[in-house]
């Protein structure tokens, strides 16, 4: 395959090296937005193809930031189009919740996922991107095209809403028990 060395490892500076080096990050960003592994893989393919077709990938200075921005934009578009169901496959669900967790924990976590999904996009996206743990606040701000302060405020608001909903849920369960 062009762009690979004799041993099969991608040649440094080649397109294959770019894909190999960043496909995981691009996938995780896409997954955080589209919430479906199949759609996330489509976004990964589209991201790299777009970068390749643009024919400027050799001139990219900040590869991580550039790819993150392209992936985020395409993922947001994909989510808006709603091409496929946003249900996670059983395989992914089992990966994200360990088997030793109690049924109650799983239920609560699933409920929280639904609440995160229900957040407005402008609050959900910075929260999800931050939760990846791969991008700094500055990078998230660049990806979203927003000032850092706005991103921080939105993340804070999103967490506050989730906290509020959790408290309401706890209150409701207490009332039910009493």
């Amino acid at each position, binding site marked *: 395959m062009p762009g690979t060395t004799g041993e099969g490892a991608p040649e440094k500076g080649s397109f294959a090296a770019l894909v190999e080096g960043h*496909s995981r990050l691009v996938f995780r960003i896409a997954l955080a937005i589209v919430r479906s592994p199949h759609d996330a893989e489509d976004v990964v393919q589209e991201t790299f193809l777009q970068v390749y077709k643009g024919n400027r990938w050799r001139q990219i200075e900040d590869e991580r930031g550039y790819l993150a921005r392209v992936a985020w934009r395409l993922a947001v578009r994909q989510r808006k189009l709603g091409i496929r169901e946003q249900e996670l496959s059983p395989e992914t669900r089992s990966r994200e919740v360990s088997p030793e967790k109690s049924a109650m924990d799983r239920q609560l976590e699933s409920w929280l996922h639904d609440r995160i999904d229900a957040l407005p996009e402008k609050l959900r996206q910075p929260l999800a991107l931050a*939760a*990846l743990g791969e991008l700094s606040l500055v990078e998230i701000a660049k990806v979203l095209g927003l000032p850092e302060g706005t991103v921080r405020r939105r993340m804070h608001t999103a967490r506050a809403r*989730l*906290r509020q909903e959790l408290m309401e849920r706890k209150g409701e369960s207490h009332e039910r028990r009493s």
Partner: protein
Amino acid sequence: MNDDHDRLHGQDNLDTLDNLIDRALDSYTSGEPGPGLTERVLSSRASVAALNRLRLRSDKPIWALAVAVALLTAAVIPLWFKSPRPFPTIVHPAAGAPQDSSRATSTFTSLPHSHPAGNSRASVIRHGVREPKTRARLASNIDHSAIFAPIVMKPIAMAPIRIGEPN
């Protein structure tokens, strides 16, 4: 004492909620690409590159043809406009035509071919009229029209201006 206890309890409660949210966010964004994603991206890249090469190759004859047509057009258009246009020699087969057509022809030949007025008349009559009578009338009108009369420049007598002398 009770306030402190409540505050501490409230803080514990908030920490617990934050921990719950953090855990939920961790699992919310967890997920790894399936095996072979890099290979799939690279193979689709390769097919796009092959498609581009093929398109470029198949487009070549079309481009060459387009360029040839453009060049030919660019060469022919100026020649078309520069070429001398023949005087009209249309003779209507209907009766009475010889007199009228001779009038028209004489009108054209009365001026040299390169004369702008001659060219104008020729084009007016060639493109304008097919009927011999109308053509003859039009030619006569043109002959008497001031528009087609040769321009005569009369010399203007000017006395030289002398500075410092009284008028």
